[in-house]
């Protein structure tokens, strides 16, 4: 979620990123949400996600198998043939990085709202973030080679550790407080959910006006890639889970976890690696757009998922 603020600043000068205060504020926001959502979980929820590792395995495959592939296919079928912009390969490189990073907190939030399996979502995020150390560079290496680029990239482990730390600590703390008092847990969960709900329009409102020129100057093939990645990623992963006959709750989780990648991580990695590259603005273009549109796409998908969940809910007579 931090990505959107970063992007706001990015246009002016990538090197300034966001100011420290804004970054701190956003981190607090995200940590509070995860703290609240964690208060709805119990250790048993995680035990169950681990005891039945199929979700985790399928999620791993979709995360590093489907998303980079979907991105690559969009690049070669839409971006490259229809774009006339100079430095298009840099845009493609940014898209590939965006497609190769793991999921982040945003996917946990949308899983929660979609009535998915939050414990599985958190477990998948942690798992794929750990694997990202190997898999993100590997995926990027493979597909950039296909594109004729000779890119190699290494991720600082501290970046990944920060993601995991920022996820595990608040969730564990929330779980602990719920154990202490179910009332405190329930109130925190409500606050976390409410903050999460406010966060979506809040991000859109601050992002769009500040980046209006960027939105206006971007051509459609770039949009198609930035929007298509999330949309196709979620859809493909969803149908794959159906093929494996996963429980609808877990299917929704894997789908969102796959399609929603960690924007802030992609941006942090790009800034760390390409800070001296004069084309960094182009590299950041798709991650920037993706980060906005994934919130819109996920909101729409969440509404569809919630409706499906409601329809599948057991109707028993009102015992009131």
């Amino acid at each position, binding site marked *: 979620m931090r990505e959107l603020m970063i992007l706001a600043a990015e246009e002016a000068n990538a090197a300034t990123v966001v100011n420290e205060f804004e970054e701190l504020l956003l981190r607090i926001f995200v940590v509070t949400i995860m703290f609240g959502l964690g208060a*709805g979980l*119990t250790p*048993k929820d995680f035990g*169950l996600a681990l005891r039945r590792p199929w979700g985790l395995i399928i999620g791993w495959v979709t995360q590093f198998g489907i998303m980079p592939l979907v991105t690559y296919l969009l690049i070669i079928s839409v971006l490259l043939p229809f774009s006339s912009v100079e430095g298009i390969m840099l845009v493609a490189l940014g898209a590939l990085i965006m497609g190769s990073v793991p999921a982040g907190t945003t996917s946990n939030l949308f899983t929660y709202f979609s009535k998915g399996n939050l414990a599985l979502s958190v477990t998948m995020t942690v798992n794929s973030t750990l694997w990202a150390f190997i898999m993100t560079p590997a995926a990027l290496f493979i597909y950039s080679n296909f594109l004729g680029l000779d890119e190699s990239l290494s991720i600082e482990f501290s970046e990944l550790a920060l993601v995991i730390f920022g996820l595990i600590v608040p969730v564990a703390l929330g779980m602990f407080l*719920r154990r202490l008092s*179910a*009332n405190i*847990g*329930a*109130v925190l*969960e*409500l606050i976390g959910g409410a903050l999460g709900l406010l966060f979506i329009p809040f991000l859109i409102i601050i992002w769009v006006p500040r980046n209006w020129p960027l939105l206006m100057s971007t051509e459609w093939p770039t949009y198609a890639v930035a929007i298509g990645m999330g949309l196709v990623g979620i859809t493909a992963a969803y149908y794959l889970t159906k093929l494996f006959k996963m*429980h609808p*709750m877990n299917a929704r989780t894997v789908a969102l976890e796959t399609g929603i990648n960690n924007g802030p991580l992609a941006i942090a990695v790009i800034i760390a690696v390409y800070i001296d590259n004069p084309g960094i603005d182009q590299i950041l273009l798709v991650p920037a757009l993706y980060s906005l549109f994934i919130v819109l796409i996920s909101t729409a998908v969440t509404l569809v998922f919630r409706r499906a969940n409601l329809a*599948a*809910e*057991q*109707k*028993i*007579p*009102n*015992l*009131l």
Partner: protein
Amino acid sequence: MTDAIWLDHYPQEVAKELPEIPHHHLPSLMGEASKKYSGQKAFTQVMPNGMNGTLTYEKVDELSDHFAAYLREELGLVQGDRVAVQMPNCLSYPVVAFGILKAGCVIVNTNPLYTAPEMVHQFRDSGAKALVVIDMFADRLPEVIGKTNIETVVTVKISEFFPAVVGKVIRGVQRYWSRSLPPVEVSHTLFKDALAKGKAQASGKDYLEGIGRGSLAALQYTGGTTGVSKGAMLTHGNLVSNTIQMLQMNGKYIQEGKEIVLTALPLYHIFAFTVNLLGFYYVGARNILVPSPRPPSNLKRAFENYKVTWLSGVNTLFNALLNERWFTDRPPKHLVASAAGGMALHESVATKWQEVTGTPIVEGYGLTESSPVISFNPLGGKVKIGSIGIPVPSTLMRCVDENGKPVKQGEAGELVAKGPQIMKGYWQREDETNSTVVDGWLHTGDIGEMDEDGYFTIVDRKKDMILVSGFNVYPNQIEETIAAMDGVTEVGVIGIPDEKSGEKVAAFVVSSLQEPSREEIIAYCREHMAAYKVPSMVTFVDELPKSPIGKILRRELRDGALATASSSSDTSKGA
């Protein structure tokens, strides 16, 4: 007369006759527990998100004293006055119920989902002078109160007695998010003000002088399935006896001061009223009150956060839980057993429950008119799945023919029962009383059979029996068979008029996947039962009409089917 052959199957610890009970009325019975377990938690109300509030035995005792004083001193009610109570399971319920009983008044439990005409009927018929109602449902009062004798309305909040902050959060959500707080447009007193007034005026007077076993404790309305609802007069003696009878039958499996019982069934229903509210209170258990188990996921947090040892439910509830993934993934670890009643427990559900939880469901049987427990499977003895068990101590049961003569063991006949729990009669309906309670025998209207061990099995409701070309067909049997098929969630079977055979069998099936098909269901039935029993009509429906506790309302199903048959319109619904 049938011999009480079942007595041989009583577990050792179960007395064959009810021991002398020193308590002559419910407040005395409850009072013993209130003193003995005073510091322990008595009731915990759990909301779907886990928010909760708790009252200890001591607190329930004290608050109900205040409410009794309010009724007698402030409102000037006298012994025998009826007080209607209309609320879902919440912490106020025990305070109100015990308060009414302590005041020597009569509790009139009322379903909160009743429509205005139903409320008018029940309040007028009972002659209730006061009503304690949950504010969420008070919007129907303006069209009701004027047509009744109700002089005072007291409103309770769902979050009553919750920790302050949590209570405010729930209130805020109700008001601004779910918008479930309609304005109360009749003059009313807030529950907390009523308690404060009662506290101020408490004089320590004995409101129970002269109240004894024969005194009326509750008017429990019933008969919604036959038409006009009538009040079963349950006395203090009926309810005290039945509480002890029920506990006796479960012997050592209900441990004093240690049980945690999940109360998902509504307390306004006689099953939960006697078993959970009275029975488990008396043994010092902690009642986990769930305001609404709909959808069943509302029970998730209650199961997660409390070490539930007992559960009382109806077939619908057990079945619903077995269809919830969170439940089957992590069945409650501390569960000892569950009690089923209210409707026939399907064998398939009982068997699957045992597989999933590793604990039994003991099925019992009873009617509102019998407070309600008549029979139970003895947990310490032989538990027969599919049977309603053996009569509880001091209770006689037998099957009789149309002339009231006992039939031979193994033959089907109407079940009749006799014991200290049988109601005094129907409130102001002498004729109905006389046709229902004959020489002390309660005629249940259920067809049953007794096996060689003295265990009873319900064959069906007398009035639901289908007559196909002169053969008796019992819908329960067909429902059981179809319900056992994979993919079938629920099924209701009725008889509808047929020119050739008199009546024909019609099945209404709820199946989320529309699988099995109509043809498959019929083929399956052919395999498992005599040809005349096989449904000639199978209709898929989204939902079956049900009573508040989840009994399938066959009458409504029949009315719906007849309406469809008589109208040529394709749009009319079958159920």
